[in-house]
C-alpha cells in the first residue's frame, strides 16, 4: 500500500531514467523486436520463456492487483454497491450527483486544490532554495542534508500527525511563540481559516525529498557553463536564471510532476488530525479522506469508485499537460547519454 512518502522517494529516481522508460515505450510502439534470423528463433523463444518466468510474481500482481481492480473499479463507478448486495447499474448517476448534488464533494475538491496548488509550489521553492544553499559548500553539507531529509521519511506517519496537532493546538508551541509577538490566533486545529495552512505547513516541512533531488541535479551542472557566463559578464542573478534554472529544468519538471500527484493523495495526516471527521467544517476533508468516508464508512463503494476515477482522470490530465508543455521549458542538455 503506497504512502505519501513513497512517491516522494520515487521522484528521486530521477528524470533521466524516466525518459529512458519513455524511449523504450516509443521503441516498443514502433515495430517491436527487430526481425531475427531463423537460426536464432529457438534462442528467442527460450529468452521469452525466461523473461516471463522471472516476471511471474510481478505479472500476477500487475494483472490481479492493479489492472484487474482498475477495470472493476471503472465498472463500479457506474453502479450503486454496498458490498453486501449485487452492484446495481445506475449509469452516470454517481458522476452527476458528485458535481450537482454533493456540496461536501465540491468543498473537498476545493480544499484539495488549494492544498495542491499552494502547498506544492511553496514546498518546491523551499526545496530548491535550500538545495542552492547546501550546494554552496561541500564540506559539512552532508549533516544538513540528512537533517532536512528526515521529515520526508516520517512526515506521513501517524506519530507526526499527532505531534503536528499538539504543536498547533491552543497553548501549544506555535500558539505560545506567536503570543510572544502579540499575535493571538489560538489553536489552529479547530480554526476553519487556519487548519488548511497548518496542513500546508506540514507538507512544506517535508521539502527534504525534492531537495535531495535538486541537490543531485545541481552537482551535475558543468562548471564550464558558469565560467562561460562569467566571461560574458553575467552576474549571480543572471547566472541563476540563464544557467542554473535551464540546466535544472528536467529535475524541476520531475519534482513538479511527482510532488503534484502526491499532494492529491494526502491521507493519513488529515485523517488523524481530524479524528477521521475531515473537520472543522470540512476543512481537512481532503479528496482521499472523503473517498474513504464514502467508500468504507458509508459503504457507498460505487460512489467512491466514481470519485477515484475522477481523481485518476485529473492526475492523468495534469501529467499530460506537464509532459506536453515540457518541450517549451524543459531543457535536456545531454540527451546523448
Amino acid at each position, binding site marked *: 500500500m503506497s504512502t505519501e512518502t513513497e512517491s516522494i522517494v520515487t521522484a528521486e529516481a530521477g528524470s533521466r531514467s524516466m525518459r529512458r522508460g519513455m524511449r523504450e515505450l516509443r521503441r516498443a510502439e514502433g515495430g517491436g523486436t527487430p526481425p531475427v534470423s531463423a537460426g536464432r528463433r529457438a534462442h528467442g523463444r527460450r529468452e521469452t520463456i525466461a523473461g516471463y518466468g522471472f516476471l511471474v510474481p*510481478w505479472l500476477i500482481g500487475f494483472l490481479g492487483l492493479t489492472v484487474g481492480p482498475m477495470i472493476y473499479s471503472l465498472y*463500479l463507478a457506474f453502479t450503486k454497491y454496498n458490498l453486501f448486495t449485487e452492484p446495481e447499474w445506475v449509469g452516470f448517476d454517481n458522476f452527476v450527483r458528485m458535481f450537482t448534488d454533493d456540496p461536501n464533494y465540491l468543498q473537498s475538491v476545493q480544499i484539495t486544490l488549494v492544498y495542491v496548488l499552494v502547498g506544492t509550489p511553496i514546498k518546491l521553492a523551499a526545496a530548491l532554495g535550500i538545495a542552492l544553499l547546501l550546494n554552496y559548500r561541500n564540506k559539512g553539507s552532508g549533516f544538513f542534508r540528512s537533517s532536512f531529509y528526515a521529515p520526508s521519511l516520517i512526515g506521513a506517519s501517524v506519530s507526526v500527525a499527532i505531534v503536528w496537532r499538539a504543536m498547533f493546538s491552543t497553548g501549544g508551541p506555535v500558539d505560545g511563540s506567536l503570543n510572544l509577538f502579540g499575535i493571538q490566533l489560538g489553536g489552529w486545529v479547530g480554526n476553519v481559516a487556519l487548519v488548511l495552512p497548518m496542513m500546508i505547513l506540514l507538507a512544506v516541512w517535508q521539502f527534504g525529498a525534492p531537495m535531495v533531488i535538486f541537490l543531485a541535479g545541481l552537482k551535475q551542472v558543468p562548471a564550464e557553463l558558469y565560467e562561460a557566463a562569467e566571461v560574458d559578464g553575467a552576474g549571480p542573478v543572471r547566472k541563476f536564471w540563464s544557467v542554473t534554472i535551464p540546466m535544472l529544468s528536467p529535475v524541476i519538471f520531475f519534482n513538479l510532476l511527482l510532488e503534484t500527484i502526491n499532494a492529491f493523495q494526502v491521507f*493519513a495526516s488529515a485523517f488523524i488530525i481530524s479524528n477521521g471527521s475531515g473537520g472543522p467544517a470540512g476543512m481537512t476533508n481532503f479528496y482521499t479522506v472523503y473517498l474513504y468516508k464514502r467508500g468504507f464508512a458509508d459503504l457507498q463503494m460505487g460512489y467512491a469508485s466514481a470519485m477515484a476515477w475522477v481523481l485518476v482522470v485529473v492526475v492523468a490530465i495534469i501529467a499530460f499537460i506537464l509532459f506536453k508543455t515540457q518541450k517549451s521549458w524543459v531543457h535536456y542538455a545531454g540527451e546523448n547519454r
Partner: protein
Amino acid sequence: MTYTTDVPRAEFAEITTEGGRAPRRRAPRRKTINTVIWFVVLLAFTAIVLYPLVWLLFSTFKPSSEFGQNPGLLPENPTIDNYVKVVEGIGGTPLWQFFANSLFIAVMAVIGTLISSALAAYAFARIKFRGVGVLFAAMIGTLLLPFHVIIIPQYILFNKLELVDTYWPLILPKFLATEAFFVFLIVQFIRNIPRDMDEAARIDGAGHLRIFFSIIVPLIKPALITSAIFTFIWTWNDFLGPLLYVNSPEKYPLPIALRLYNDATSTSDYGATVAVSFLALLPILIFFIVFQRFLVEGVATQGLKG
C-alpha cells in the same frame, strides 16, 4: 542563493591557476566569512526543521496537565509516568504486542519486496523478449497511478477471499512486486552493471537463473539494502492498509494502535499519546541515523546517474 556555484569554482581556480598570488590571499578571508554565515543560516534552518521532533522527545516527559499550558520545550515537572503507563498497553493488549505486529508485517514486506522486485528487475534489465518494452512502460505507469483507484476493488477481492482481519492483504502484494518503485530502482542498478560477466557466464553455459543468483544478486546488494530500508520504513508507517484490513485490536500494528490512544485519551491523557508516538517513531529514527548515507546518497545518485 545565487552565489551557489562561486565557491566550488573558486576552489577549482585555486588548484589550476599557477602563481596567482594576490587573488588567492584575498579570497580566503571572504570565504571564511561566507562559510560562517553559511553555517549559521543552515543551523538556524536545522533547528526549525528538527524542532517538532525535539519537542516530541521532551514532551514525553511532561505530565498530561502541562499540555496546552506549557508551550515550551522543557517540562516543568519532568516525569517518566507516561512511559510507565503506556507500557501496559491499551484495551488489554500490551504495548510490545503492537510493536511485534508492526515488526512482523514490516519484515515480511521486506522479504517479499526484495524477492519479487529483484526477479522482475532482472527480467526488465537483462532479458530481451517480446513485449518487454510495453511491460516496462506499464510498470513505470503504475508509479504515477493514484493508488486510491485500486483500494476499493482490492478490498472487495480480499473480502471475498475472507482475508480481511489477517495480515495477508498487507503482505501478499509485496510478494507480487506491486511496489513498482523498487523494481525501477533495481532495474536502474542492474543496467549500470557491465554485461561482460553475464556474457562470460553465458558462454560457459549458465542460464538466466544461474546468472541472476551468482552474478547479479551479489552485485546489486546496495540497491537491495536501500529497497529493504525503504520498504521497512514505509510499511512501518503505513496507516491506510491496516486501517482497512486489520480489525482486531490484538492484531493492530503501531499506527492503528496509536489511533486508539489518540481517540481514547486525547482530551485527558495527552502524555500517553505523545509517549507512544515517540516510541513508534524511534525505530525509524534509529534506522535513519544508522543508514542515512545509504538512504539519502544512494537514492539520489542512483536515480540521477541512471
